[in-house]
């Protein structure tokens, strides 16, 4: 931390725009680290307000990640609640030098989702598919809706790790190292999984919609 702050002050004294940008980036990283550290220290000490503040900060991202993984709001609620329960009960297992709180929480959610899907494979029914499957046929839907339904179906059919990798990469803005940390794999393995996921999605969409609509 001290080293990062001294780098920050030296970058600020340089005066060039690149250095100013670097300094701003470094400052935000340092602030983020400090925020995380302070928040988690307070939670470890049993501070309920700090806990609620952390939940409010990460709730949307965690619930959206769980929903894109499971496709069902009831299961999403269970997984989200379990994730935040663990934030309260296992806050002392978080290490600032290993991961940010966001990465740590997404890792918990990832593991809970994978466990859940492996226990009950039949439960991977997609609520986000049902809304279209119930009444209207694809032919009667607007083109955009058909494409979206096909995409959701293709996502739901991906293996869990591929789905997780593509969701974290495309929707959550995590870096490749952070995603590798969340999924507990190497960056090389992540790239391989991501490439397979994109190939799988393309092939599935090509099969359902034909070459013209995907390309």
């Amino acid at each position, binding site marked *: 931390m001290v080293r990062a702050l001294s780098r920050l002050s030296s970058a600020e004294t340089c005066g060039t725009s690149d250095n100013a940008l670097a300094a701003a980036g470094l400052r935000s990283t340092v602030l983020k680290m400090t925020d995380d550290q302070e928040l988690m220290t307070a939670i*470890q000490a049993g501070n309920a307000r700090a806990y*609620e503040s952390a939940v409010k900060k990460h709730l949307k991202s965690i619930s959206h990640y769980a*929903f894109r993984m499971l496709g069902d709001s009831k299961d999403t609620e269970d997984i989200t609640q379990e994730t*935040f329960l663990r934030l309260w009960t296992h806050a002392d297992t978080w290490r600032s030098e290993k991961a940010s709180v966001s990465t740590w929480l997404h890792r918990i959610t990832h593991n809970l989702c994978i466990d859940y899907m492996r226990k009950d494979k039949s439960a991977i029914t997609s609520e986000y598919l049902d809304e279209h499957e119930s009444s209207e046929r694809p032919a009667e839907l607007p083109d955009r809706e058909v494409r*979206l339904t096909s995409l959701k179906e293709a996502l739901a059919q991906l293996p869990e790790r591929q789905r997780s990798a593509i969701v974290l*990469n495309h929707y959550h803005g995590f870096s490749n190292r952070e995603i590798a940390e969340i999924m507990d794999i190497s960056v090389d393995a992540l790239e391989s999984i991501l490439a397979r996921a994109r190939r799988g999605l393309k092939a599935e969409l090509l099969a359902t919609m034909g070459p013209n609509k995907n390309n």
Partner: protein
Amino acid sequence: MTLSSERFTAIVEAYGSQPARWPAEERALAIAYSAAHPEAQALQTEFRALDDMLDQFQVADLSLLERNVLSQVARTSEGNVFDHLLDWLLPHSEKLAAWLWRPALVACMPLVCGILLADYFSFGIEGVQNSREEELYLLSLNDYTETFE
């Protein structure tokens, strides 16, 4: 320093067509490579359709779910009477204390409760301090015939 075509292909196949999602340490090189090579731009275009479709998939409103989670969280952080009692007995101070004393205290509580209950409800067992007359009376009831034979 430049990027090989194989590496550029691997990046686009893994991270898609949008440079914002490419690895930060290779982003500048990959952008420069794409600008200089038409086949790289064609590859990006090929993957852009998929990225555009992925962009369209937005999660529906989960505000009800989020309210439920927040109310559950409030209940969790309030804790129960037992937690408050433990916090009062042994507030969070050191990790060692938390790891050793709190579980030990929890383990001892049933024992302490058992002793207190047993002491309070003696279940008809009375003290064995009989008087001298009572002891003589009890002795007189014994059968001593075998001893004398």
